[in-house]
């Protein structure tokens, strides 16, 4: 939407990254490098957690920065810089997921990731699941990370995005709403569904680690 001069000035004064972007607008290459430095880690993490693989995450991160660079001349601060860049990230992720090539890539990456999980681990998990032994032991380290990842993968695209912005970017509902072009109320519902899904997907592991504490509490 249009940005009034006072809004632009407000963000320029309050957000150092907006000031950096204003320098990028004036073709300051050093400022662009600084922005990439500041945000590449956060974007790679986001794309990695919502997407199929690290390689794709880095490609999409580059796409975000190139979009910003291409459109620098028209930049007007209308939001916190972080909100703006994560809005672009959401668009890039969506476009990528829509394209045919990307779908193919996801399928391949999923297959790859399945292999990366190591057949041994998967077979062990399947065997343990089948025998009902799984809940009897604690899952740890990489295996736990893998279970969390699988739970996150089951979420819908918007639930994953909102969850990651909330968890890793500490964004408020208002900021997430702005980044995802939703109302705060919609974000509240979206995050509730995501958290309930997460709780249910990880129920047996949560029960394992917290059952005793909760039982004590409810007695």
């Amino acid at each position: 939407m249009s940005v009034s001069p006072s809004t632009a000035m407000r963000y320029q004064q309050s957000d150092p990254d907006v000031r950096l972007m204003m320098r990028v607008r004036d073709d300051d290459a050093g400022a662009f490098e600084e922005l990439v430095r500041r945000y590449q880690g956060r974007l790679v993490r986001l794309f990695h957690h919502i997407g199929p693989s690290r390689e794709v995450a880095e490609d999409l991160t580059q796409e975000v920065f190139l979009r910003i660079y291409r459109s620098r001349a028209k930049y007007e601060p209308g939001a916190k810089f972080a909100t703006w860049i994560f809005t672009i990230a959401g668009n890039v992720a969506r476009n990528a997921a829509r394209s045919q090539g990307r779908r193919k890539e996801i399928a391949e990456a999923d297959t790859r990731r399945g292999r990366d999980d190591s057949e041994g681990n998967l077979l062990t998990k399947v065997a343990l699941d089948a025998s009902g032994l799984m809940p009897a032991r604690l899952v740890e380290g990489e295996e736990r990370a893998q279970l969390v990842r699988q739970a996150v993968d089951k979420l819908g695209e918007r639930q994953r995005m909102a969850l990651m912005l909330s968890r890793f970017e500490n964004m408020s509902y208002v900021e997430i709403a702005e980044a995802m072009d939703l109302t705060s109320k919609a974000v509240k519902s979206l995050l509730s569904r995501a958290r309930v899904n997460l709780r249910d997907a990880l129920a047996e592991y949560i029960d394992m680690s917290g059952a005793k504490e909760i039982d004590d509490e409810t007695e």
Partner: protein
Amino acid sequence: MKPNDRPSPEGMLADDSPIDRIDEDLVAYLDGELEPEQRMELEARLGSEPSLRARLRKLQAGWEMLGQLPEVPPNPKLLETTIRMAAIESTGSLQRFEQQRPAWWKTRSGMVSIASLVAFTLAVLGAKVWEEWRFRRELRLLPIAMRLDGYLHASDLGWMRELAKLPQWRETTTIAQRLGEWDFRLPAKIEGEPSSGRAALLRDLPLEDQQSVIEAWQRFEQLAPPQREAVLKSATEVASQSDREELLSTMERYARWRETLPPDLRDQINAAATPQRLELVATALKTSVTQWTQQSSRLLSDQDVETIYKSLHQIAERRVKTLEERAPNVTESVTRVFATIEPRTEAFFLRQLFRAPDQNGSGGVPRFDFLAPALSQFAPLLNQIRGPLTEDELYVIESVLGEPVTGTLAAVADIGTLREDLLRSWAEESMRRMSWNRSGTTLNERYLLLDPTRRDQLDLLPPSEIIQSLRAEDGRRRSFP
């Protein structure tokens, strides 16, 4: 983006699946996003219902398990390749490559027969004429597309005229405008430009505005033919009215506001006769103003949040000091407790202290011990100084805020108690944000968030000292002023 971009796995809630209201409230509570009244009610229930506490902890446990996701440091070469790719674009190498194409093309074009070239040219010309005609039509209809929701959902002109007379409506639209909730300059700008100049106008628009225009046009194009006909008919009817400008203004504001209402309320408003409809709208407008007040916290920069939080600390300290006569050393004891408790608990304490007394009779019991048992011994005393921020205290907060947000306060100073409501909402937001900022960041994140100069200084230290310094940065922020 559509709600269901892919089917939900069995047993998982899709974006539009019904959800248990209590889960929604528990999640909002954990995120510090519950409205004060709801939060108080929920805390009262949490205090007395172990099963609800268990439910809360399970939701929190799932959330905490996200911390198990691996750190994903970017490839060290990513920065370099990104800069290089941007540099290639910047120096125009790509464009030069494009410009070189005709020479290469010429050698191939010799193989193309003249007849096929003529046929090709005619086809291209035909397509161009068609494209040109279509583009002109799009430019002509663009203002309608930009106000699509108004024509779709607010086409009852009699009702729009009634609404425009409603005092609450006029006040609410003023508030929305002053808080920056609504901005209708883009449709007006496009409509103000004759069709012939719109192409140039679009080219000069900022990127975000171009995106908005494209999205509006796509929505218009995706309408079913009867719906599109109805929109065009409504636009023609509005254009013939003598109060056209005011009607359009009410229509687009009403359509935008209507979007924020729950679907069942929208249906109720639609179905009601005019007098009841006006009553329903007046009540819903009040709720909207409350929501916008809370949403205005997005204006706060991190620096504003820290400044407000610091003021709240000082205000809390002053309130604690008033207890000295009744309980010598209470200030010292509370300060000692604050030096040891978790940051989130500290924010929780402040929230309890600045909370309005319970209206429902269940909350006479102070909840200072909810997360910090160490504070329970002071609970009866602290309860005596508990209460919402007073006018003087709000002034203390306002006096330390910077220009951009004080400008907003000044803009709404003449509207009822809006200034006070904004300040209270910002105080709440600062406690909420500070609790997350302080507890949610890893060392790596803290490092990335540092000022570049400070980061450069840290880079010169041995790794163990870098970690120590980052921990100290956090500790320094946590101490009670």
